[in-house]
Structures are given as structure tokens and as C-alpha cells.
């Protein structure tokens, strides 16, 4: 959760010049990504903020990208490492396309590739500081999985990264069911993103929702959620308790 906690691995075994080449702390980070399976495919939501420590430095960061024809990748954590991963995947998809054999990499394969990359980087004490969400649909088979920066990977009906694990997963566990319609799925995702907006300090009110189906990937225009602040208790919280705060 606390990405800024410095994880200093034992660098006595590696030479001094290796230090400057390894990721020690994340600098520009994205917050949580939430995704779920619905009737026609996968729905994923992420806000567009890139924080530089405690400042919200970038407010137009697209943290979800299409991979090939069948997959959608969302990432939280270090933005530069996410861009590096996109480059790796570009090479992978290009190599696959060059075969020109009518077959294309599906979400399961891309997920496996990402797991190997993340785990191997972690073993060299030079991790890609990201938590990735990989969703897609191929030949009617929906797939939604996640990989963390240390290589922990699993697939599930609904996943989230970062704070989303604590705030969004409980809601999804209770309210997700098989064969959600598109509108219901979006409503459920918006519910989760609203709670994250209220309670995560690095979240901003500018989000995108991406969907991937057999037809392809579409990503919505950035929009903001309506929030409610008109509780009477918020207007004058210390009404009955004068002198308190």
C-alpha cells in the first residue's frame, strides 16, 4: 500500500555501479485499478492521476492500454515502469504478428508473459514497481488476472490493486454476480471508484472506464463522479459538543 516506503535490499552482493541502475523507490505513481468480469467481457476502471510523492503532478495519465486484439492492461505504481512494460509488450505483439499465422496472443498468454517478467526482475532485485491488471476475452473465454511487483499472480472474477484491495474488493465480493449487464457493471465500478475517491488520498475525480469484448477495446472519455457532502452532521459537526472538534 505504502509505495514510498523505501525497500532497500541487501546490496552488499552487487557492485556499487549496480545501485544506480536499480529501482529503489517509486517516484511518479498511479493509484488503484479496479476490474470485473461481466456478461460480454471485462470492465476496468482507473483514474487519471499521477502523483509525485504527495503532490498530484499529472492529471492526464492513461493507465489502461489495449494489448493486441484480445487484452487490456491496467497498471498502478511507477508510471515509467508501466511505460517500459508497454514497450516489452509491443515487442511481444509485433513478434507474434510477424508470424502471420492467423493466431494471436490471448489474455492468458500475455498474463503468463507478464508474470515471468515481473518475477525475474524481482529475483534480480530490480523490480518493475507496478501492480498490473490484465483482462481480456478470446473465443468467448473471459479472463481476468493480476500480477504484483514481486510476481504474485492469480486470476479471479474481480480484481483490484493498491487501496482498491481494501476498499473495493469487499463491495465486489458482496455485489458481483455472474452475467452482469454493461450498465450494472459500470454502476458497480463507479460505486467502488466513488468510495476510493472519498477515502484514498491519491485518488482524483477524473476517471476512465475501459471495456473489452469480442469486438475490441473501447475506452471512455475522462469523466468525474458525483459526490455527496450534504450530510447535516458535516455542516455543524460540533453542534451538540461545543468546544470539541
Amino acid at each position, binding site marked *: 500500500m505504502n509505495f514510498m516506503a523505501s525497500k532497500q535490499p541487501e546490496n552488499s552482493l552487487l557492485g556499487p555501479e549496480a545501485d544506480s541502475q536499480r529501482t529503489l523507490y517509486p517516484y511518479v505513481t498511479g493509484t488503484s485499478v479496479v476490474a470485473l468480469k461481466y456478461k460480454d467481457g471485462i470492465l476496468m476502471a482507473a483514474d487519471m492521476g499521477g502523483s509525485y510523492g504527495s503532490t498530484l503532478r499529472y492529471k492526464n495519465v492513461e493507465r489502461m492500454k489495449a494489448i493486441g486484439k484480445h487484452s487490456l492492461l491496467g497498471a498502478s505504481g511507477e508510471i515509467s515502469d508501466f511505460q517500459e512494460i508497454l514497450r516489452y509488450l509491443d515487442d511481444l505483439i509485433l513478434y507474434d504478428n510477424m508470424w502471420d499465422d492467423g493466431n494471436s496472443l490471448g489474455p492468458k498468454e500475455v498474463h503468463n508473459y507478464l508474470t515471468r517478467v515481473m518475477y525475474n526482475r524481482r529475483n534480480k532485485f530490480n523490480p518493475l514497481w507496478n501492480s498490473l491488471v490484465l483482462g481480456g476475452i478470446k473465443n468467448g473465454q473471459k479472463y481476468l488476472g493480476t500480477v504484483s511487483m514481486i510476481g504474485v499472480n492469480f486470476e479471479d472474477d474481480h480484481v483490484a490493486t493498491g*487501496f482498491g484491495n*481494501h*476498499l*473495493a*474488493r*469487499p*463491495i465486489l*465480493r*458482496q455485489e458481483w454476480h455472474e452475467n452482469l449487464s454493461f450498465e450494472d457493471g459500470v454502476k458497480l465500478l463507479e*460505486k*467502488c471508484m*466513488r*468510495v476510493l475517491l*472519498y*477515502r484514498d488520498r491519491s485518488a482524483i475525480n477524473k476517471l476512465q472506464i475501459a471495456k473489452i469484448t469480442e469486438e475490441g477495446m473501447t475506452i471512455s472519455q475522462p469523466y468525474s463522479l458525483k459526490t455527496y457532502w450534504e*450530510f*447535516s*452532521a*458535516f455542516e455543524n*459537526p*460540533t*453542534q*451538540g*459538543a*461545543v*468546544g*470539541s*472538534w
Partner: protein
Amino acid sequence: MAVEQANLCTPQDAAVVRTLRVFRDPHVDRELEPATVLIIITKHVMSSPSLNFQTQISGLILSLSFSGQRNMSNSVIEVPPKGGFSFDLCKRNEMLAKKGVNPPSFRKTGTTIVGLVFQDGVILGADTRATEGPIVCDKNCEKIHYMAPNIYCCGAGTAADTEAVTDMVSSQLQLHRYHTGRESRVVTALTLLKRHLFNYQGHVSAALVLGGVDVTGPHLHTIYPHGSTDTLPFATMGSGSLAAMAVFESKYKEGLTRNEGIELVTEAICSGIFNDLGSGSNVDVCVITKGGKEYLRNHLQPNPRTYTNSKGYSFPKKTEVLLTKIIPLKEKVEIIEGGDAMEE
């Protein structure tokens, strides 16, 4: 008394020593108190016009030595003890922890506790699991503590701390009620708790959700271990607070009825129980309104034993049965309810 051996550099110093000698009662063989010496010297310093004398006097004080016949005379000058909490043991504990000697783990109530304000009052909820590190030490503990007939408090953090602090403030409130003859107010409990916790600078690890109804209306507060408080319409604390807050943030609205409120509180606690490892077992609910309170212990039990013996427990055949008749205890003292409280 070694004053005479002090460095005498100026005639004024000699005057001081002479005064001291006078003070020393020749008939009583008693040493001069260090404090007395200080007063005498100070008096001389105050009345003296010259600066030189003062500096000489400070040299004089430093070279004074007192014999070891009095028990405290080895110290130079008595400094009054500092008030407040002494953090020396905390420093020692930190030093030991650095060397690898860790203190025994406390019994924590890794917890989900919630409170919300509804139409007619306040509803508090809590799970019932108490943990000691990775082990569940109490499957059905009580986390909703009594403070006053109209005020209850849920506690998260170290179990001993929450119990002790709520007990202490509860008795203080009782004494206050006897003193004033009025119903306790929630802000009273709030202030007593926050003063105590701030005084101990966060070392009393108690995170509390305090709720009640008094003459000024329903109130809900959260109190953090360092002593800060919040006044909120809905609140959650403990390790499961995020899971419970997710439920509250998506489903809370103002003007809930009693049943809606109980259902929402139960849902939030269940969210904590099933999504947080530090919380589990059953749901306790406490509803406080102007009319009175209702403590629903184990309102919901979503984690029953999966396999139970249908025959129950059967004693071995050889067990001796002493009596099959139950004789109730005789009441010796008659308890008078109410009494005459003072009129407002």
C-alpha cells in the same frame, strides 16, 4: 561542613562564609541544609551591587561539598522531580528492540468496530474476535463497553488498554453523576477519554468509537490513541475499518430507521469479518435511543461450527451424579431500584 574550605577570593565571600557560620547553630551539631545555603548565598547576590561578587559566588557554590552524613547531601542541588509520564522505560524498550529482544506481543483486538447516527439515536456495532499475534485467543469477546446508561463505547487496539480506559472513565462518569445529579453527557466521556489518551502520548493504544444519546441529542465520536477526536455521522475503526467504511460510504444516508440502521451496521461488520483477517466470529450490536438502550449480544452469528455432534456431550457412564435438584440462592439483601435523584 566544608564551606570553610571553599575558595575565598574576595572579602565579600568571607562575609558570606561568616553569615553561614552564624547560621550554623553551635549548640546543635547539625549540618546546614543545602537549600539553606542556597538561600543565604542568593540573598547576598541579590543585595550586592557588583557583578564580580556574583561570579565569585557562583564559583563558591560549585566548590561547596557536603559531607556524606546526610542521606541526600551527596547531590549538588535538589531538582524537583519532573511531572507527567516518564518515558525512560520506553527508551529502554526501544534500545532492547534494536538488540533483538522483543517484548511479548499484547493481546490485540484486531477488529472491526462501527457506529452510525440514525433517526432516533446511535447504533454501535462490533465483531467478537480477539487475537494474540496470529492466534485467535477469544472467539467471542465483548468489544462494546458500558460507560453510562445512555453511553456505550466500542474499543479497538490493545484489549487491556481499551478495557482499562473505558472502565476508568465509566467510574469517573458515575461519580460525576452522583455529584451533579444529572444524566451523563457524551462530550463529558469524550473529554475524559481524550485527555487521558493525550496525556500518555499514544502509548495507551486504544482506538474508540464512542456513542450515546443525552439531553443535547445523539452523538457519535471517534477517539484515536494519540488523543484526537472526530465527530461524525458514521465511523469505523480497527483493522477492518476500510472494509466496513466501503459499505458505509456506498450505503449510508441520513434519516435511517432503526431496522435499516441495524441492517447497515450488521452489513458493515460482516464486511469486516469476511474481508479482514483480524476480525471474525459474531456481530454485536447496541442501539441507544432517548428511551433507553438495547444491547444485542451476538445479534448475528454468521460463523457457526460446521460439524457438531447431534447427540451433544454425553458424560461417561461412571460419572457420579450428586444432585438432580437445583436450589436457588436465597436473597439476603433487598435491592431498592432508583432512589431519589436530585431534581434538575
